[in-house]
């Protein structure tokens, strides 16, 4: 498969099934907070996956409303998760796609994220923050890197029972 975006990956100290479970069911705990990472002001919504192949990723608010980030396209525990990805300034049918892969490695799992489809957005789209090409790709990659680093830390500081050990 040829990637069309910068892929951000990280090693976590858990087997692929557990990495997948924590990625999905605990996303609100490891996904970073604040306006850079959350979707709607005042940035106090909770992220939640409706699990399974017909599920969605939502940000839910105290007043009962929710923002739908995307619908699941592919749900394969321990292997691959694909979902649509919209942010609140997207219009109409504008969307991107997030493809997450879970690959067993010595001592754990490599979690890789390809977030593609930004090229379809117009050049002056607010989501671009005035950036294009590789500058834009790396800006998006930095945000994923920060969140995946947080996911990795979740296994370092609070290792689940079935996690392997990457630590020496």
């Amino acid at each position, binding site marked *: 498969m040829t990637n069309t975006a910068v892929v951000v990956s990280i*090693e976590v100290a858990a087997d692929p099934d557990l990495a997948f479970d924590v990625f999905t069911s605990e996303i609100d705990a490891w996904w970073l907070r604040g306006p850079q990472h959350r979707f709607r002001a005042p940035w106090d919504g909770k992220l939640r996956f409706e699990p399974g192949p017909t599920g969605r990723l939502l940000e839910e608010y105290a007043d009962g409303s929710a923002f739908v980030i995307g619908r699941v396209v592919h749900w394969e525990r321990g292997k691959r998760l694909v979902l649509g990805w919209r942010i609140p300034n997207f219009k109409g049918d504008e969307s991107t796609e997030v493809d997450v892969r879970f690959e067993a490695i010595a001592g754990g799992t490599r979690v890789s994220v390809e977030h593609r489809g930004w090229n379809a957005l117009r050049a002056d789209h607010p989501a671009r923050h005035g950036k294009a090409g590789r500058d834009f790709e790396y800006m998006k990659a930095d945000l*994923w890197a920060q969140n*995946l680093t947080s996911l990795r830390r979740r296994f370092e500081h609070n290792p689940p029972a079935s996690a392997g050990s990457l630590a020496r």
Partner: protein
Amino acid sequence: MPSPLVPYITVKGAARAIDFYKNVFGAIESGARYTEPGGRIGHAEISIDGAQIMLSDEHPEIDVLSPDTLGGTPMTLHLQVRDAAATVARAAAAGATVQRAVQDQPYGERSGTIKDPFGHRWMIATPFEDVSKDELQRRVGSAYKIS
């Protein structure tokens, strides 16, 4: 606390280099890896016994070049390990060139120098003795003035 100084090295074949540093030095991949379309690694981070190193593939368009392309390196990475001889043997078996075999140095270090398969030079050292300035001067005689 992490050190404020982190070597950021350039290699041809960053993915293979990370595997080499894992296998030979027991490195772990401690941070996020950025892989561009086409496979070029824009950034990666490893940690060897708690010491951080950043690395990437070559980016000729911004003059980020590897020792292979430059024809050598002016820098040596000094790495302290528990058993220098064993580490150097592992490095040699994995394709490194031994430039100076491991031997006891007058300053109390057992060390040797290798050039890894990506052109970076490492001094692999195990301290075995505290040597005072006077004792070091006695050992090196007139070859060096220790100050």
